[in-house]
C-alpha cells in the first residue's frame, strides 16, 4: 500500500495520521514507527499535480509533528492547582485520572445546580479543530447530557462576516465566492482582497496550490489588496494595492463612484437582483436618500460625495490608482473578488465585509462561472459528519468573543446591548469553563493582561479546566489541567475543509501508545461522564476505535458512497471526492448559481429574497440596539458605508497622536494560531518579529534587528523588529498566535499581539476586531547580528 512504502527505513511500520489544526486545510501525515517510536514524518504520497487530484503535501507546521509529539511541552499527567495558591502561580499537585474526573464532574454539577446550566461554558479552541471525533463536540456532548450549557455563535476567524452576511445575502454564515478552480476554468481576473492563501492556507493540497495554478498556469490577472506585501502579493500578484487598515469600505465607495459616473456598473443586475443600491429599489417605509447611490453621490445624511479623491484621503491609495482599478474590474470580467477574513476583523468589520460583497454586486458577478460573490473563495464542503454532541437544552448563546464579559457580568448581558441570542438577558455569569485544545485564556483572546486578572479572580469564574497536549499559557490559568494525546496517539477521521473543489477524508490511527499518562480526549470526557452518572449515555458502549468504525460505516459511507470499506481505507489513507464524482471538472463551485438563474424560484433568505444592499432589518436595529458605553464607530448602518472608528486610521493620523501606528497581526507561517508556537524548530524556521516600515523606523531611531517596545494603554510587548518595506508606512504587524512570556513587570517578551488588542466588540456581531489597534513603537536596545 501507499502508506507502507519503505522510504529508506526497511523495517518501519508506516501508519496514516494527520495534522489537525485550524488552518482550514488538514493534511495527511505518514508516520514511520520503529520500536514504538515515531522515526519520520512523511508527506502524502497519493495523488499528483493535477488541479483536482493534487497531492496533499503538509506544510512546515505538520512536518514538525515529531517535535510536537515528543517535545518538552507535553502535559504528562493530570495536574490540580495546589490549595492555597492563586491561579497562575504555577504550583501543581499531580493527581490520578480518577481524582481528576471526580473533581471535574463534581464542580460541573455543583455549578449547574447552584447557578443553572447557563453558567457552564466550553470556550472556543481550535488546536484539535475539525477532527471528526476529537473536536469540541466531546465537551458539548457531556454538557448536553447534564442539562446543557451556554453556547456561542460565530468564531474568532470571521465573527463579523459570519454574522452580517444574513442581512446582505440571507445566509446565516459567510457567503462563499466561486472557488479558485472555477476561476481557473472560467475567469479572467482574481482579486485577493485582504486574502492571503499563500500564508493562511499553506497546505500543498489546498489553496496555496490552486492560487499558484490561477496565477502561473491559467494566467489570471491577480490583484492583492492588503496593507502588507504578503507572500500572496510576492508570489501571485500582478498589482498590489495597499489601503490603510480598516478603510476598505472607503476604497470601495471611491471605486463604485467612479464606476457609476462612467456607467460601468451592471445596472440590470442591481435592478433585478438587489434592493437599495438606487432610490428606485429601496424598500417602502424608509425616508428618501438612504440608498447606496445617494450615499456616494453626496445626497445622503452626511452630504459628502464619495469621490476617488475622498477615498484617497482616507485610504492613502492615490485617486488615479482607484480609478484605474475600477476600470480594470469593469473591463476584465468575469472577475472573482474574494475576501479574506482580515478586513472584517476590524471595529467596522461588518461594513468592511459587506462593502466587498457590494463591489461584486455592482459588477454583476454573482452566480456566474468565473465570477463570484465577494466572499472568501468557495469550496466543496465535506459531507462527512462529526461526533454527535446531542441537543443542547439551553437556548441562550453569546458571540464567540463575549465570554470574558459573561464571566465578568453575564447576568447584565442582553440581546440588544450585547447580542445575546435565545433569551433577552443571560440568567447567570459563566462559573464553570472548559478549554479543550485552545489557548484563548492566555494569548488568543484580546487584552491578555486584563483577561489574566479577570481569570485569576476565583470569585468570578469558579472553576477552569484546560485539556490539551501542550502546557499552554492557558493551562497556567487553570484549576485542573488534563493531558490529551496528540492525533498520533489516537483513532480519528479527519476531513478537509477550505481546500477548494477537492474534498477528502484522512484516516488517522494510533501510530504509538499514548505518551506519559495522557489519554485521548474521548476517553477523558467518557471518564468524566461516568463520574457524573451519564457514562453509558456518553459512550453508548463504544470505545474510541469503535466510534471511528461506527461513524465511518453508518455516517460517512452513506454520505460519500465512493468511500471504500474501513480496512481498505486504513491502507489507502486518503480518499478524494467531489461535488460531481462523475466529472469533477464540471462540478467546480459557483456560489449562488441557482439564485442567478432563477431568483423567483430560488430566492435568498433575506426578507426581500434579493441581495439587500440596504437592509431594513439593520435600519430597524440602528434605532433599537443600545450602545451605553459607545465609542466612536459604535453604530449600525443599513448600507455598507465607511465608518471611522475608535483606534482607526483617522485617529492614528491626528497631529500629536499618542498612539500613531496601526497594528495588525498577520497569520504566521510557523503556527496555526498558537499551535506549534512553542516548538524550537518551528521558532527557528520563522522568528516572531514586528514588521515596521523603514520610514517609521528611521523616525524612531530604530534599525533592523533591534529590540523594540510596542505599547498602548492596555499593555507592552518587547520583541525584535524587522524593518521592511513590505508593510506600509504608519502600519506595523505583529503576527498573531505567539506564546506569551510575561516578565515580572507585566511586559510580554513572546510577542503576543493580543497584549495590545481591545476587548471592545463590534456593533452587530459583538465580535473580535484585533486589527483595530493603535500603538506606539520605541527603541529598547540595539540588536545583535545574525
Amino acid at each position, binding site marked *: 500500500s501507499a502508506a507502507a512504502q519503505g522510504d529508506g527505513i526497511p523495517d518501519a511500520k508506516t501508519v496514516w495520521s494527520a495534522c489537525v489544526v485550524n488552518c482550514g486545510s488538514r493534511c495527511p501525515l505518514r508516520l514511520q514507527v520503529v520500536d514504538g517510536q515515531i522515526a519520520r514524518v512523511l508527506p502524502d504520497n497519493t495523488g499528483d499535480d493535477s488541479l483536482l487530484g493534487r497531492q496533499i503535501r503538509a*506544510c512546515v507546521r505538520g512536518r514538525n509533528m515529531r517535535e510536537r509529539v515528543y517535545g518538552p511541552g507535553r502535559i504528562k499527567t493530570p495536574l490540580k492547582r495546589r490549595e492555597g495558591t492563586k491561579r497562575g502561580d504555577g504550583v501543581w499537585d499531580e493527581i490520578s485520572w480518577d481524582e481528576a474526573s471526580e473533581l471535574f464532574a463534581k464542580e460541573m454539577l455543583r455549578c449547574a445546580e447552584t447557578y443553572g446550566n447557563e453558567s457552564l461554558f466550553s470556550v472556543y479552541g481550535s488546536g484539535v479543530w475539525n477532527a471528526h471525533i476529537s473536536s469540541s463536540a466531546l465537551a458539548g456532548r457531556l454538557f448536553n447530557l447534564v442539562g446543557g450549557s451556554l453556547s456561542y455563535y460565530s468564531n474568532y476567524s470571521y465573527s463579523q462576516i459570519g454574522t452580517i452576511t444574513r442581512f446582505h445575502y440571507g445566509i446565516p454564515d459567510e457567503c462563499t465566492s466561486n472557488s479558485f478552480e472555477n476561476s481557473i476554468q472560467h475567469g479572467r481576473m482574481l482579486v485577493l482582497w485582504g486574502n492571503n492563501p499563500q500564508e493562511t492556507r499553506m497546505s500543498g493540497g489546498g489553496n496555496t496550490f490552486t492560487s499558484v495554478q490561477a496565477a502561473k498556469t491559467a494566467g489570471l490577472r491577480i490583484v492583492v489588496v492588503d496593507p502588507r506585501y504578503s507572500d500572496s502579493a510576492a508570489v501571485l500578484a500582478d498589482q498590489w494595492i495597499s489601503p490603510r487598515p480598516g478603510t476598505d469600505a472607503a476604497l470601495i465607495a471611491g471605486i463604485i463612484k467612479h464606476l457609476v459616473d462612467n456607467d460601468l456598473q451592471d445596472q440590470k443586475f442591481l435592478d433585478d437582483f438587489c434592493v437599495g443600491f438606487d432610490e428606485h429599489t429601496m424598500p417602502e417605509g424608509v425616508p428618501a436618500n438612504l440608498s447606496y447611490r445617494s450615499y456616494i453621490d453626496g445626497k445622503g445624511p452626511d452630504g459628502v460625495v464619495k469621490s476617488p479623491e475622498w477615498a484617497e484621503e482616507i485610504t492613502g491609495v492615490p485617486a488615479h490608482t482607484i480609478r484605474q482599478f475600477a476600470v480594470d474590474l469593469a473591463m476584465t470580467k468575469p472577475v472573482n473578488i474574494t475576501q479574506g477574513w482580515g478586513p472584517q476583523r476590524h471595529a467596522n468589520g461588518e461594513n468592511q465585509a459587506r462593502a466587498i460583497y457590494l463591489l461584486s454586486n455592482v459588477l454583476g458577478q454573482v452566480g456566474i462561472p468565473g465570477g463570484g460573490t465577494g466572499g472568501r473563495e468557495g469550496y466543496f464542503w465535506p459531507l462527512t459528519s462529526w461526533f454527535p454532541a446531542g441537543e443542547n437544552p439551553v437556548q441562550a448563546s453569546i458571540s464567540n468573543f463575549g465570554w470574558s464579559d459573561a464571566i465578568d457580568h453575564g447576568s447584565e448581558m442582553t440581546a440588544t446591548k450585547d447580542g445575546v441570542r435565545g433569551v433577552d438577558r443571560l440568567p447567570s455569569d459563566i462559573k464553570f469553563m472548559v478549554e479543550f485544545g485552545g489557548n484563548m485564556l492566555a494569548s488568543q483572546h484580546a487584552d491578555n493582561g486584563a483577561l489574566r486578572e479577570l481569570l485569576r479572580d476565583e470569585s468570578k469564574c469558579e472553576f477552569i479546566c484546560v485539556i490539551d497536549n501542550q502546557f499552554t499559557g492557558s493551562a497556567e490559568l487553570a484549576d485542573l489541567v488534563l493531558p490529551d494525546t496528540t492525533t498520533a496517539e489516537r483513532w480519528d477521521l479527519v476531513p478537509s475543509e477550505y481546500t477548494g473543489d477537492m474534498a477528502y477524508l484522512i484516516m488517522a490511527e494510533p501510530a504509538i501508545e499514548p505518551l506519559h499518562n495522557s489519554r485521548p480526549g474521548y476517553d477523558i470526557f467518557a471518564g468524566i461522564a461516568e463520574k457524573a452518572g451519564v457514562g453509558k449515555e456518553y459512550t453508548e458502549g463504544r470505545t474510541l476505535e469503535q466510534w471511528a468504525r461506527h461513524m465511518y460505516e453508518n455516517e460517512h459511507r452513506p454520505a460519500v458512497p465512493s468511500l471504500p470499506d474501513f480496512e481498505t481505507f486504513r491502507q489507502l489513507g486518503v480518499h478524494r471526492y467531489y461535488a460531481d464524482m462523475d466529472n469533477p471538472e464540471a462540478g467546480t463551485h459557483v456560489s449562488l448559481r441557482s439564485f442567478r438563474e432563477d431568483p423567483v424560484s430560488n430566492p435568498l433568505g433575506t426578507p426581500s429574497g434579493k441581495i439587500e444592499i440596504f437592509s431594513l432589518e439593520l435600519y430597524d436595529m440602528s434605532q433599537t440596539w443600545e450602545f451605553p458605553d459607545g465609542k466612536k464607530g459604535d453604530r449600525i448602518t443599513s448600507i455598507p458605508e465607511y465608518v471611522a472608528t475608535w483606534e482607526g486610521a483617522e485617529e492614528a493620523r491626528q497631529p500629536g497622536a499618542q498612539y500613531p501606528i496601526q497594528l495588525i497581526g498577520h497569520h504566521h507561517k510557523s503556527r496555526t494560531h498558537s499551535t506549534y508556537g512553542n516548538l524550537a524548530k518551528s521558532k527557528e524556521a520563522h522568528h516572531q518579529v514586528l514588521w515596521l516600515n523603514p520610514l517609521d523606523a528611521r523616525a524612531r531611531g530604530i534599525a533592523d534587528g533591534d529590540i523594540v517596545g510596542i505599547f498602548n494603554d492596555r499593555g507592552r510587548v518587547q520583541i525584535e523588529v524587522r524593518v521592511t518595506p513590505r508593510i506600509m508606512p504608519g502600519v506595523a504587524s505583529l503576527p498573531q498566535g505567539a506564546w506569551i512570556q510575561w516578565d515580572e513587570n507585566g511586559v510580554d517578551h513572546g510577542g503576543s499581539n493580543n497584549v495590545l488588542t481591545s476587548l471592545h466588540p463590534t456593533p452587530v456581531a459583538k465580535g473580535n476586531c484585533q486589527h483595530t489597534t493603535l500603538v506606539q513603537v520605541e527603541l529598547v536596545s540595539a540588536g545583535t547580528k545574525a
Partner: protein
Amino acid sequence: MLGFYFDSTVCNGCKACNIACKDKHDLPVGVNWRRVVEYTGGSWSVSGNTAVPSVFSYYTSISCNHCENPVCTQVCPTTAMTRREDGTVFVDDEKCVGCRYCEWACPYSAPQFNAETGHMTKCDLCADYRDAGQDPACVAACPSRALDWGPIEELRAKYGNANAFEPLPDPEITRPNLVIKPHRDAQPSGMGTGHIANPKEI
C-alpha cells in the same frame, strides 16, 4: 552529475523543505542543510495623504549545490569531504575533525557544523531515498512544487541555465549544479538592490 532545480516564482518561503530535511536527517536546532532566504527591496513614496509602494520580495531555497568546483573538498585538510561518482558532495564522518574550514569556504553555507557530534554535516541529496527510488525529502515535501532534482543536464534541458541572482554568490566561484527559475523581481547577482530580510533564520 546530479543537481537541484528551484522555482523562485512559486516559493512562498514556508520552509516545509527545511523541516522535512531536518526530520529526515534528525538534525537539531542550528543545523540546517536546506535554508530559505528572503530577499527584499524597494521603497515608498509618501506624498500628502498617499503612500505608494515600489517593493519586491522573493525567496530562494538553497541546500548544497553539489558543485562542479566544490571548494569545500579543496580546503578540507583530512580528505573527509569528497565528491562521489554521481557528483554529490559527501562528508565522511570517520575522517572529519570538525575544523570547519569547509564551512568558511563554501559561499552557500552548505556544510553545517553539528555541535552535538563535533563533525561537519551536509546534504547528500538523500542518497538512501534515491537508492530506494524516491525523491529527496525536500523535493517531496514542497507544497508549492518548487523543487526538483536529477541529472543536471536534464534539469538544464528542461528548465534552462539560470542560477545567478541575488542573494546568491557568483556561480563562477564553484559552478553549482543548480538551476533557478527566476522570480519576476529577481535581481541580478552583485547588484545589491535589496537585502536579505531574514538573516537570523538561515
